[in-house]
């Protein structure tokens, strides 16, 4: 292994470059297009056995190291940063409304993308965690940069959910590091100590010693948007700007996939989590009316395939999950670019307001359909050569439930994203809207990603992707052969009959001005309502009881436990003594309970 001190991890180019962009003024838009390409070149120029460490307090942090899945994830993250920057390019000038937004959104997006790349190069758990949290900061700023009231509120909810997820993750990491230190294990931050999946942790038969693994798993699953922890995704992503959502679709969930692959490969629970995600995404997308929220739910659906593959844990399944993440980032960004172009040109986002746009937005329509075909794994698109590896792995392991649900979900993808999105936006009724295709940079970004979707599905062209997967095939052996007569026919049958079901049931699928409640209802409605109607009246009642109780005490004791509110003050405060007595009481109860067998 080549060890080096001083070389920064590739993501730092995007992070620092992004933060310096606002200082560059007129040159900033051009530099913004170069930075991701520079990062991509740097990733590929680094020796495959390089390791870079930095001293940090009493530890050595490994800020650059190659894990099996680093190359495939880092490559697609850098490519995505380029495609996103091209789509977001401030064509109307930096002084325009879009340009002003760009000056905040793009640096934030680059910090976000660069941190995601740094996570893939992290060689220890602390480095991984620091960049993981920096991603949350960058992505929240991307949501906020839309500058609307909706984005401000959604961004705050997004930040809070990710902060809680981060705390859970940190608690798990600390618990495990302390356990390792107490056993005298050297280098307790090394990632190898956190590979719970390969070590046999399956989460379904865990013991009391597995609390750390559980906390880390939960923290990562928050970012993977696994229900019921993932309502933040469909809540926040569609509130970002047309270009912000494109960036957001790529990094958080796929970095979680990378980390799950690193730490929890083969964890059986993830098979069921992945299946639940795949089905949940379809059901919610079927019911949804907002075009970008439809696509947000389909992110959860697609990440479900990857999480299931990680749970299966074989080389084929993990290769499939990594390859599918690569393909998914491209076609999902393409779909959201298409939806973003429609939003940018019409100002509308609800299917009920759209329709008939094929008349005047042919490039946006064609690119949207290419993305829709790729997400549906149509033959000759990227999805066909990647997702089918996960299904094949389930079949190889004779996992009947996984295979039947994944196959059903593959059909459902075509229904909710493959047909529903293009149908309701570009066809169905004629809304009378006749906007032209978007500006050249948005068209170029869409055409670039559409070309990648097609090229990656062409026999002979997808092999370079297979070559950078975590478990490459030995020389002279094909990693996976997607193009067989039976596979192509089966897939066409599955998808086209799914399409038949869509058109037969079209009256049932008619869009309505509705949303579907998700688990965010608990913190958006239940918690405030509980405070207003239950806790607040209870506390008022408790205050009256307390006042009555304290009123009966001797004066000296009264002064000790209670500072009476000043005249006309609008709040009451507890004296320090009162708080101490309450806490002492709680601790006493806790102590007594601790002795109860």
């Amino acid at each position, binding site marked *: 292994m080549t060890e080096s001190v001083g070389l920064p991890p590739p993501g730092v180019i995007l992070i620092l470059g992004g933060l310096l962009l606002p200082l560059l003024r007129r040159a900033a838009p051009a530099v913004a297009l170069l930075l991701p390409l520079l990062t991509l070149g740097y990733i590929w120029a680094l020796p495959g056995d390089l390791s870079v460490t930095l001293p940090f307090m009493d530890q050595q942090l490994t800020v650059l190291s190659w894990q099996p899945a680093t190359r495939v994830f880092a490559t697609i993250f850098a490519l995505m940063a380029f495609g996103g920057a091209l789509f977001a390019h401030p064509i109307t000038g930096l002084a325009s409304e879009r340009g002003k937004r760009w000056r905040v959104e793009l640096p934030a997006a680059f910090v976000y993308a660069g941190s995601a790349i740094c996570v893939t190069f992290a060689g220890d758990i602390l480095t991984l965690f620091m960049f993981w949290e920096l991603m949350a900061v960058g992505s929240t700023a991307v949501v906020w940069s839309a500058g609307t009231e909706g984005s401000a509120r959604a961004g705050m909810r997004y930040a809070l959910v990710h902060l809680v997820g981060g705390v859970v993750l940190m608690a798990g990491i600390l618990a495990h590091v302390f356990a390792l230190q107490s056993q005298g294990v050297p280098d307790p931050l090394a990632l190898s100590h956190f590979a719970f999946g390969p070590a046999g942790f399956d989460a379904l038969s865990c013991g009391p010693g597995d609390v750390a693994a559980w906390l880390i798993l939960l923290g990562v699953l928050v970012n993977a948007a696994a229900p019921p922890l993932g309502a933040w995704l469909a809540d926040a992503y569609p509130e970002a700007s047309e270009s912000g959502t494109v960036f957001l679709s790529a990094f958080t969930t796929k970095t979680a996939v990378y980390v799950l692959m690193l730490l929890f490969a083969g964890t059986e629970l993830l098979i069921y989590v992945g299946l639940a995600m795949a089905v949940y995404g379809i059901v919610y997308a079927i019911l949804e009316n907002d075009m970008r929220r439809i696509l947000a739910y389909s992110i959860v659906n697609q990440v479900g395939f990857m999480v299931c593959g990680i749970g299966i844990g074989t080389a084929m399944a993990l290769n499939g999950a990594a390859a599918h993440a690569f393909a998914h980032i491209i076609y999902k960004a393409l779909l959201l670019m298409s939806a973003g172009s429609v939003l940018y040109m019409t100002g509308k986002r609800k299917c009920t307001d759209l329709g008939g746009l094929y008349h005047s937005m042919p490039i946006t329509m064609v690119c949207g359909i290419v993305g829709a075909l790729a997400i549906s794994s149509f033959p000759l698109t990227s999805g066909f050569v990647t997702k089918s590896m996960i299904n094949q792995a389930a079949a190889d392991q004779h996992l009947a439930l996984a295979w039947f649900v994944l196959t059903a979900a593959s059909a459902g993808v075509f*229904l909710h994203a493959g047909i529903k999105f293009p149908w309701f936006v570009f066809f169905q009724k004629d809304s009378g809207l006749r906007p032209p295709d978007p500006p050249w940079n948005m068209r170029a970004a869409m055409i670039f990603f559409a070309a990648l979707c097609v090229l990656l599905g062409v026999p002979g062209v997808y092999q370079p992707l297979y070559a950078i997967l975590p478990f490459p095939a030995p020389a002279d052996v094909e990693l996976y052969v997607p193009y067989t007569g039976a596979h192509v026919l089966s897939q066409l049958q*599955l998808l*086209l009959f799914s399409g038949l079901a869509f058109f037969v049931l079209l009256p049932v699928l008619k869009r309505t001005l509705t949303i579907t409640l998700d688990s965010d209802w608990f913190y958006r409605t239940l918690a405030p309502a509980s405070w207003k109607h239950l806790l607040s009246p209870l506390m008022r009642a408790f205050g009256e009881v307390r006042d009555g109780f304290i009123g009966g005490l001797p004066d000296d004791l009264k002064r000790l436990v209670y500072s009476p509110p000043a005249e006309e003050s609008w709040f009451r405060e507890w004296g320090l003594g009162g708080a101490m007595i309450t806490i002492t009481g709680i601790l006493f109860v806790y102590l007594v309970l601790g002795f109860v067998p």
Partner: protein
Amino acid sequence: MKLEDPATIRMLWVVSLVVLAVLVAADAAVEHHPHFGVDGGFAFHAWYGFAVCAGMVLVSKFVVGLLLKRRDTYYDD
């Protein structure tokens, strides 16, 4: 050719149904390698794709939708 034209829609339906019929007929010409038995049945992916999609639409609409659907100003109110 406008896609809103009823004649165009009728023609698209005819072409689509012919393609679907050809896909089902082609099943006899390929050799499947089933892993679970039923997946090797005649035109399995065709009827399975149709059935699960119809099922998902109906369950979404009449079970989940019935319980969880609200007007889209729900949180604004």
